[in-house]
Each structure stands twice: as structure tokens, then as C-alpha cells.
């Protein structure tokens, strides 16, 4: 196969599985090393630069990085990347001085609709550049769903307030409590660009007989959670049914447990395994004594004179035809569950009743705005979308990533640059060699399994809706967990001209990554390596022909980045070099940094 174009940042970036998987491309191993070194504030700043809400995300992130983490392929479980972020946030101390300041005004005005993570990221990126940023939100406080949906026992308000504060101190014009009900009117004001970060605010309802009659005790999950969050709702019946299998359902049931629900059950149509909720959310619900009943489809609400008495479900089973699943009646008697309240958490939708048909923003046949996936621009060049509003409900880290991307576009758009052309990814590579077998990173591979995050006892946690359930790693546990990281950004860089083909690297490599063999097409090469290279998502690093005519092929899949190949190489043909990859943010194309 053709030799690896290893000079491209993307090749090396992909080797850092966590950073590649993170929508905001947070340099994970870099901050984990800083945590291990006790440099929490530095670790925090690395995070803050990329993902804007380290304290929030260290508690709530969907963590797409963790299933990608190499450690999971090497032993059983990935590094607790997310909870380590929290260690940095909890221990950072005073960092205000390190935050950017609002830039001298450049005279350009940008309106942001919604004050969720997407808009707040746009604001953070644009304010230091001198843009005048106005943020509108119908809610009285900034934060979006991070504030109104995520329960306080998962995300204490102080943590959110602090990180929202790091942005509001840059002095955007905040127009809270002001819902935008006409895009046309907004465009008529003198804004140079508009960013729509209004989220996916509508909870899907349930249409079954009896629903209208018993409406007083049937609540839409996200509306109910918002009402709890604002303190309007403070209690619920003793017996609660939560319908739905996603993370909203998990937050509903756990909140219900804290507001007086004693017999709280989750009921899902699908099987337990296929539920959308993250495994750890399901675990936490189970730990709080909440059973999950599966394969039950809601059929009717039962009531007595308008008072809710329960719900009837039809039992179903999964049937697979051509790999497609269908839920078919199981042929068993219906199930009735008695309850006092029902929380409906069966999905969220976008809604743009305030965007008029004639303001240049086109919608597709699913009533979603037509938005470019790279530039976030809509069909009206002045209007950009991001977060849940752009492509449907996702999560905070995606909202942040969209925010960065949209800010780059807005900055370029308002500087007269072509927004389709994106500023290049920056990469620095530095050798980690300090001596014959001394490296400036810890290459002694730690064998410990993933450390559990301590939790508050149920007896205390269930009494107080504001008591944070997860206690987080303390410094000692944080250090222990940080040591599990394999430093995937410290890359094995091969210099073919120096290699004398002595095999020393092949012999020492604990993971059988390296092979010297005859060249061939990739498919064939993958079968001829020291250990089979079956993970097609991971690249082969391939050299040009060496002295004997063979090539060096390294399977990146399970490399431990232990550096033993480089320690063993007599000629220095292997070197361990740290790649620091930086995804450009707004201003990068105009500034030198």
C-alpha cells in the first residue's frame, strides 16, 4: 500500500482516539497529564479553551470519547476521561486572570437566539474579538437546557453559574426573559448576523385513550423538569410511571424519587438493552431503587371521574426480519399498573413557529432548517444555526462544537472571507526523548482497572434534590485514574532512512504492533502482520521500502505508546513525539498565536 502520509495532522489526530471522537476535539491526554502532575488550573484551561464548560461537562457529558478510548481496547474499560475533567474543575482554584477579556469593539453586531451552550460558545469566541453580541432567551437565566433540564443533583447550580459567568463577564448584551417571536423582526434590527441556538424545546406527547380526561396528572417530561428546576413544582404522587427509555426518562424518574415518589417505575416499549439512555444513567436509576419494565406499549390511561388511576400496557416482543426489529404483540394478557402521576419522556422535537416562511430560511420536508454541516450557515447567508436547533437534539458537547464552528463562520463572514474555506488545523510535534531511555512523559504502563466514582448514600441523596449524587474523584483517586491514560498523543514516529531492520522493535513490542514484511495491498497486508489487524477503523502506519525491500507496517490499533520500540531501537529510527493538535477557533485565521 502507499506509505502513510504521516505529515498530515489528521493522521496523527486519529491516533488520539479520544480527541478525535470528542466533537470539540479536546486534547484529552494533555489535560490528563496535567491532572497527574497536580496542575489542575492548567488542565482546566486546556479544557476550557476547547469545550467551554469543563465543570458542567465533567459531570454531564455524553462522553463520546470514552467508547473510543484505546484503553477500552487494551483492557476492559476506558479511562474515566469525563470524570477526570471534573477533577480539574473542582480543584482549579482561582483562574479568572487567565480568562480572555472583551476585545475593543469592532462595530459588528451579532444576535444570538437562546442562551444555551451553543449560543454561549459563539459568544465566548466572538466577544474577545470585539464583536457586539446580544443574547436573547425566553428564560430568566442563561444556560439553556443545562439549567432547566439537567437536575441539580447531577449538576449543582453553582458549577453552572460559574462557567456561564466566565462568558457573561465578557459583557454580552443579555436580554433574558425575552422570547424572540419573529425572525423577520429580528433581522430588521441592525444585526450583521444572527445565530439561532434555540434548542429542541418541544416534548413529544402521548396519544392514547383517557389521556385528555386524566390530563391533570399526566406531564410532558421536559416541561415538568423545567418546572421543577424553576421551583414551581415541588412534589409528586407516591406512585409514578415514567414512560420512555432515554436520558430524559432517567432524569424524570430520579427527580420523582426525590419529590415524594416512592413507587417510581420506568416503562419502555423496547427491550432494556436497546434503551437510548447511557448505561451509567440506567445504573444510577437502578441504584436508586427504580425498576425498568420493558417490552410494554402504552395502550390506555385508566381514570375514575377524571382522576388518574393507572395505565394499561400491551406486552410485546421483538421480532427480527432482515436485521430489522419490529415489536409484535406477545399474545399475553395486558398489564395494568396503578399510579398517581405519569411523566411522558418519549422524545423531543424542534419547533420554529417564530421563523416566518418568507425570511430566506428554507426548511426541509422534516421541518428542519437547511443548514450546511461545516459552516452552519442557513439559506439566508446572515443566519446561522447550531446546537439542537441545527440538526435535532444531541447534547452539550455537540452544541459547543457547533458554536465554535459557527463562530468561525460568522467571523469570516463579517471579515469578508470565504466561509467555505476553513482555517487549517494546527499541529506541533515535539520529541519526548530526554535520555537513552528517559522520556518526558510517564511511559510505565499502569495496570489498574477503572476506578469507581464515589456516590452519596441513597438515604441522604434521595432526601434533597439539590444534593449532588456523585462526589467525584478526590485528588488521590484522580491521580490513580489519570495514570491509566496511555498518552496516545505521544506518537510513534518512524524514520525509514535510519532503520537497519534489526527487529529489535518487533521483538520488544508488547502488543505485536510492528511488522517488517513484503509490501502489498492493505487488505492483504492486514492478514500478514505479527498480530492480525482486524480493527478496520484503525490505520496502518506504513513506511516506504527499506534496504531489504521490505516495508515497516505498524497497526495503530492497540499500541500502548509505551515507547519500548523507541527505547530498543539502536539507531533512533523510532522516536516518541507529542502531537498537540489545535482546532482553529474564531480569530485564528487573522491572529498569530
Amino acid at each position, binding site marked *: 500500500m502507499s506509505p502513510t502520509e504521516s505529515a498530515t495532522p489528521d493522521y496523527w489526530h486519529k491516533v488520539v482516539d479520544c480527541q478525535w471522537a470528542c466533537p470539540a476535539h479536546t486534547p484529552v491526554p494533555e489535560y490528563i497529564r496535567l491532572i497527574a502532575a497536580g496542575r489542575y488550573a492548567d488542565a482546566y484551561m486546556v479544557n476550557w479553551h476547547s469545550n467551554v464548560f469543563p465543570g458542567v461537562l465533567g459531570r454531564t457529558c455524553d462522553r463520546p470519547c470514552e467508547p473510543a478510548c484505546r484503553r477500552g481496547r487494551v483492557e476492559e474499560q476506558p479511562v474515566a476521561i469525563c470524570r477526570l475533567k471534573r477533577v480539574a474543575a473542582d480543584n482549579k482554584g482561582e483562574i479568572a486572570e487567565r480568562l480572555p477579556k472583551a476585545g475593543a469593539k469592532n462595530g459588528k453586531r451579532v444576535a444570538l437566539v437562546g442562551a444555551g451552550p451553543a449560543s454561549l460558545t459563539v459568544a465566548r469566541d466572538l466577544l474577545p474579538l470585539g464583536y457586539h453580541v446580544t443574547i436573547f432567551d425566553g428564560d430568566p437565566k442563561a444556560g439553556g437546557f443545562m439549567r432547566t433540564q439537567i437536575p441539580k443533583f447531577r449538576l449543582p447550580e453553582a458549577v453552572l453559574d460559574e462557567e456561564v459567568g466566565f462568558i457573561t463577564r465578557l459583557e454580552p448584551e443579555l436580554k433574558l426573559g425575552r422570547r424572540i417571536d419573529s425572525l423577520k423582526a429580528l433581522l430588521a434590527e441592525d444585526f450583521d448576523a444572527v445565530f439561532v441556538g434555540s434548542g429542541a424545546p418541544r416534548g413529544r406527547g402521548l396519544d392514547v385513550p383517557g389521556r385528555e380526561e386524566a390530563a391533570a396528572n399526566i406531564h410532558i417530561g421536559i416541561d415538568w423538569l423545567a418546572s421543577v428546576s424553576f421551583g414551581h413544582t415541588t412534589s409528586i404522587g407516591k406512585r409514578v410511571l415514567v414512560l420512555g427509555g432515554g436520558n430524559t426518562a432517567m432524569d424524570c424518574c430520579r427527580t420523582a424519587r426525590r419529590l415524594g415518589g416512592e413507587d417510581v417505575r420506568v416503562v419502555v416499549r423496547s427491550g432494556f438493552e436497546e434503551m437510548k439512555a447511557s448505561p451509567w444513567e440506567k445504573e444510577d436509576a437502578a441504584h436508586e431503587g427504580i425498576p425498568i419494565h420493558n417490552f410494554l406499549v402504552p395502550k390506555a390511561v385508566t381514570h375514575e371521574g377524571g382522576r388518574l388511576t393507572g395505565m394499561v400496557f400491551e406486552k410485546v416482543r421483538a421480532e427480527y426480519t432482515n436485521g430489522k426489529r419490529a415489536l409484535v404483540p406477545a399474545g399475553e394478557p395486558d398489564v395494568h399498573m396503578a399510579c398517581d402521576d405519569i411523566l411522558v419522556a418519549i422524545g423531543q422535537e424542534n419547533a420554529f413557529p417564530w421563523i416566518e416562511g418568507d425570511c430566506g430560511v428554507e426548511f426541509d420536508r422534516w421541518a428542519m432548517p437547511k443548514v450546511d454541516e461545516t459552516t452552519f450557515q442557513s439559506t439566508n447567508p446572515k443566519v446561522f444555526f447550531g446546537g439542537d436547533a441545527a440538526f435535532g437534539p444531541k447534547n452539550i458537547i455537540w452544541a459547543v462544537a457547533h458554536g465554535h464552528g459557527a463562530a468561525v463562520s460568522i467571523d469570516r463572514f463579517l471579515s469578508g472571507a470565504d466561509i467555505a474555506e476553513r482555517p487549517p488545523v494546527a499541529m506541533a510535534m515535539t520529541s519526548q526523548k530526554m535520555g537513552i*531511555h528517559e522520556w518526558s512523559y510517564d511511559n510505565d504502563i499502569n495496570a489498574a482497572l477503572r476506578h469507581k466514582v464515589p456516590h452519596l448514600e441513597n438515604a441522604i441523596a434521595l432526601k434533597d434534590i439539590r444534593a449532588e449524587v456523585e462526589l467525584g474523584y478526590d485528588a488521590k483517586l484522580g491521580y490513580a485514574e489519570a495514570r491509566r491514560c496511555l498518552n496516545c498523543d505521544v506518537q510513534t514516529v518512524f524514520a525509514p532512512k535510519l532503520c537497519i531492520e534489526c527487529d529489535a522493535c518487533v521483538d520488544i513490542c508488547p502488543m505485536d504492533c510492528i511488522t517488517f514484511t513484503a509490501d502489498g495491498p492493505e487488505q492483504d497486508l492486514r492478514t500478514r502482520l505479527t498480530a492480525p489487524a482486524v480493527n478496520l477503523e484503525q490505520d496502518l502506519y506504513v513506511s516506504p521500502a527499506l534496504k531489504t525491500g521490505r516495508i515497516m507496517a505498524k497497526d495503530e490499533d492497540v499500541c500502548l505508546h509505551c515507547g519500548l520500540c523507541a527505547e530498543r531501537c539502536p539507531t533512533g529510527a523510532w522516536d516518541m513525539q507529542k502531537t498537540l493538535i489545535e482546532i482553529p477557533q474564531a480569530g485564528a485565521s487573522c491572529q498569530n498565536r
Partner: protein
Amino acid sequence: MSYLAKPKFRHKGLEQNALGFTHRDYEGAISTLCAGCGHDSISAALIQACFELDIEPHRVAKLSGIGCSSKTPDYLLGQSHGFNSVHGRMPSVLTGANLANRELIYLGISGDGDSASIGIGQFVHAVRRGVNMMYVCENNGVYGLTKGQFSATADTGSKSKAGGINADSPIDLVSLALIAGATFVARSFSGDKTQLVPLLKAGIAHKGAAVIDVVSPCIAFNNHAGSTKSFDFVRAHNEAVNRLDFLEGREAIKLDQAPGTVEDVVQHDGSVIRLHKIRDDYDPRDRVKAMDYLQQRHAAGEMVTGLLYLDPEPRDLHAGLNTVKAPLNRLDERALCPGAAALTALNDEYRAG
């Protein structure tokens, strides 16, 4: 060398042998030799050979003398028996161990200094007695451990790292083994595991004195221009006469190449050595011709590698001495110490006549 222990993590897709082990279960302590040393590659080849032969590590005894090469038994088969003896004395210690317990697999691991200088007498006697062992000489042409003096296998005219020229004649361990009556003789190169691993497997399975001379570049003291044991020189002058596959058991013997270029040699125990001939006229069963050929090619400045001589029906030391079949540690006290009467009877045997 490295200070760190090799991580315990391993590739999850590693092949397992009949015992359920992966090749990593045959590793030893981490090597303290110089980075890139040929000896480490030979250790890796030995690990691979034992893995492929499904050998139970505790059935192996590794014995060595003194030298970098003689340190290597520590870097493989951590679960087997080991004896690091004095300089050049490994063959005697191995012979003794073999007499005491004939059921173990004996690996004699030595260097060119250990075998061709101080231990040359020990070496030839162990070979001529037909001790059932595989004797591996990791041959780098220098005393590596004592910082690179020429050894007795250094070629005349070869240049030391400091610039000195060797005036003495070299000792060729392969020729010496042939003369002394070894029943399995091979030469290989640490940098060519595809050739080396099957040779080691066949050598381990051979039930007699098997000698393998493995040229093994010394990265620190003998890998420069002017050396005849450097990676570049060996690669340029390596003349392989054959390549082989070692097959256990008679089953599945099917030739996949044109006759004439492939030949199966069936061993006494039923195992098969399949020779892929590179030189068609080379017959590894003809000892005299082999010696002749080796001298010719040596005179031409080439280094012959491959399986050079094989007697498929070897005889070993125990057969010659008619020793007891069981290892001594399985005999009871009565058998080992038959008493004064038995001693008298034995002495009387010698007095008679």
C-alpha cells in the same frame, strides 16, 4: 536496555497454542542487552519456536556460560529451569544435567567466545558424545560483554571498531561440529526469523546433538564497515542452501511445490522436516560433501546458511552408555543406593580376569 518491565497487556487476538498459551507466555525477564542486539532477536525466535512446538516451559532446561549471549536465557522462558555456569563450562554442566534427567529438553546457549575460545574443548566433547541437546551459538565475532575484543570466530582481515585488523585464522563452529559428529548442524542469521524459527524447532525436536551457529550482529562493537558479522555484510553474503518447515506428526504431508525443489525428511519420531531447496544439488544428508561445500564457499567469501547436515537416525549419549531409562529423581533410595553388597559385586566385576 530498558528499566521498565514489559507491560503485561497483550494483543487480544494473539494465536494460542495447544496448551492455551500465547507466545507471550514464553517470555522471560526484560533484556538488559544493548538496544538492537542480535541476541535479543534469537531469544525472540526461541520463544516463537517453543510456542509453536507447544512446549511446556517447565520441561525445558536452559544452560549457558558467560557472555552477553550467555545472559540471554534469563530473557526467555521465565517458567523453565536455568543454569548460568562458568565461562566455557556449559557443555559439561549440560551433559551432567542430561545424565541425571534425560526427559527434559536441553537448550545450551552460548557465544562464540564462550564456545570457540575458553570452552572449545568442552564444546567438541559434548558434541562427539552425542548429548541430546540443542546447542545455540550466538556468534558475533567478538567478546561483546568485555567490550569487543576479537573472538576466535572473527574472520582473518576483519576490522575492529577501533580500527585493528584481525590476523588470526577463524574457527568455524559449523565445520567443527561436523567433524566432531554432530547429527544436526545448521547456520542462520538473527535478522532472518523466517529461516531461523523452523531451524530452532527442528533442532529442539532432534534427538541427538544439534548445533546451530547463529550469526548475531553486535550493535555496540561489531556492526561497522570492515566487520564480517555486521547486518549489512551478512545480508550481502548470505547464501541460503535451503529453507525448511518443521512439521509435527506424519499427517497432512502434502507437497505444495514442484518436486525436485521440495523434499521431506522423515525423522525417527515421525516428525517431518520439509526442505525447500534453494540449491538443488545440496544434500544435507551427505556429511562429507557438506564439509567440502562449506570450505569452498568460505574460500569464496560467502556465508552458507540453512540446514547443513542432518542424520535422521541419531544416537544419543544415553544409548551409548546404556543408562537407566528413568530420570534419577524418579528412582527410589534403594535403586540409587543399592548397598555394600552391590558395590562389592560391581568391584569384583572389574577384578575378574
